[in-house]
């Protein structure tokens, strides 16, 4: 029973990070109709930058964390301005390939500067467990969970209550109508990229804390794809919920399916089986709009 609960909690924590990064992916898709295949690499670079700032400046984690966010903003602006804005209206395949190209460049930077070996993240949150009555949860996990919830709540409030958030929602629901009402599309696109890069950066720092730093971190970002497809590529609520679902399923899969099937490493792959199954059965996902990307 403890094993089961442990898997569930682990899944919820990792899942909440997926949710947050999925939020970024959905956001870019809604605002710009671009699926960002460099999301995983954004996550990875966020983690490395945070580590580097801690090492070089020796500042406390919180300050370094904020500086990392600043870096992600600049990076997002650069990506949007230098590449994606020039590709507005280009074919979907070309845009996907462009984001893949950006991902490759980021990966090359990480490999060049920090190398391919795994680096431990300095301990920010103690791994020591806290007794929650039913189960003991590591403080690190608890903090990761709280932080990703906080970020999601923050962005939720941003969309709901601020003027920019309103304009972004308007752009997402109809780009043409928004443009004719005088919404500056390029600015909205830039903001979408910024938010997406920042949540990826936060996700990177949190996963880096949990799993340590290596170029493999980008795979965590990739696992956001099953989450967004499950939730519906254009649904923010869907992304949030299904991130957690994917996290839990992945952990349960890794924990139980191995004994059942005798196959190794099924956990990380399980979400992709789900992805294919959803695309077969219900491509719009649980919460997605019906009218998109049909024949």
């Amino acid at each position, binding site marked *: 029973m403890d094993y089961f609960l442990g898997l569930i909690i682990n899944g919820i924590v990792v899942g909440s990070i997926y949710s947050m990064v999925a939020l970024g992916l959905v956001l870019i898709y809604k605002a710009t109709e671009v699926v960002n295949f460099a999301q995983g690499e954004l996550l990875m670079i966020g983690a490395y930058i945070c580590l580097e700032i801690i090492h070089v400046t020796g500042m406390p984690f919180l300050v370094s964390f904020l500086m990392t966010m600043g870096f992600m903003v600049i990076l997002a602006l650069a990506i949007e301005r230098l590449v994606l804005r020039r590709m507005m209206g280009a074919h979907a*395949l070309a845009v996907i390939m*462009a984001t893949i190209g950006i991902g490759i460049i980021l*990966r090359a930077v990480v490999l060049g500067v920090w190398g391919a070996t795994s680096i431990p993240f300095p301990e920010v949150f103690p791994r020591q467990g806290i007794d929650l009555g039913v189960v003991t949860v590591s403080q690190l996990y608890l903090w990761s969970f709280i932080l990703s919830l906080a970020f999601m709540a923050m962005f939720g409030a941003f969309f709901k209550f601020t003027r920019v958030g309103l304009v972004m929602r308007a752009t997402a629901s109809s780009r043409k109508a928004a443009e004719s009402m005088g919404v500056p599309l390029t600015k909205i696109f830039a903001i979408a990229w910024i938010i997406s890069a920042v949540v990826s950066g936060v996700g990177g720092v949190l996963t880096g804390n949990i799993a340590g730093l290596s170029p493999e971190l980008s795979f965590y970002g990739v696992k956001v794809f099953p989450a967004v497809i499950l939730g519906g590529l254009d649904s923010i609520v869907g992304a949030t919920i299904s991130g957690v679902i994917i996290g839990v399923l992945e952990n349960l899969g890794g924990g139980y399916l191995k004994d059942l099937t005798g196959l190794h490493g099924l956990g990380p792959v399980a979400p992709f089986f789900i992805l294919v199954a959803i695309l077969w059965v219900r491509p719009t996902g649980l919460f997605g709009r019906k009218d998109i990307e049909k024949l």
Partner: protein
Amino acid sequence: MADRFDRVGAVALIACLAVASQFMGDYHLALLTQITIFALSAMGLNMLLGNTGMISIAHAAFMGVGAFSSAYLIQNLGLPALAAILLAGLITSVVGMVFGLPSLRLKGVYLAMASFAAQIILYWAFEQSRWLTGGQDGRFAERPVMLGISFMDSHRFYLLALAIAVLGAVANLNIERSRLGRAFNAVRDRSQAAEMMGVNVFRTKMASFGLATFYAGVAGALFGQYLEFVAIQAFSLSVSIQFLALVIIGGLGSLAGSVLGAAFIVLVPEILDTTILMFSHNTGEMAPIRLGVFGLIVVVFLLFEPQGLARAWNRTRQWALNHTGKGSQTRS
């Protein structure tokens, strides 16, 4: 006029390659063989991506299916090499169509994700299936003996690869001009209109998947035999991405693009390596620089020459034609 010029040129090029390869050193021959096999594989992906407008981020995994199944068919089941290569192509084709099934309802980014999942699932399956792939250790693949001729020797093996690639290219050109080829383009440009004109969209898409993965399977089988050893790492996600980049850099929907792109993707890292070695002897720096330049090239091509090398080549050829006064008709 220009068409005949092309045909004569192509035959001359193939003859040149066949003769010149026999006098090449091992290093250059290895590069040439790799370009030839990659070009064959790229033709399939280009048919899918360029002609039918469907993206696949799993091309390398499909090559892997071909490589492993041909090695298994030859070594474990004792099939003759020629039959094994063809059968490997067919097996890959079936696997490809299974993963292509969602394309019934999907396009664009959704299809990209479906194929992305295919890459990850297939790669994981390679890792698990030790009986087929040897797991992390990989497995040996012997050079084939066909119709009593042994292709053990690298120079001879190149001729085999060249012959199969030429067959693939001829088939590619003929398919493009056939009813099916036109249907590919119709589905790419306006699938609804195509359906109304009596094109069975689903069947056309499946045919495109089947053909693309058949090419991948055959090329994969040859690739394994050329290396004489098949390791699963050769069919990872990054290799799939390389193939996508190859087709985009070469030129979408163009046979010349597949060939030029293959040459580009094989030669540029080699040229880079030699250049880096001139300035530094720290070989540890090579991989990241190679990777970074590769990413930059992809982005730069998308921004500034989205039609790829094939168009650049066409421009040059047109210029040459105009200046030698052989043909003044313009043909894009």
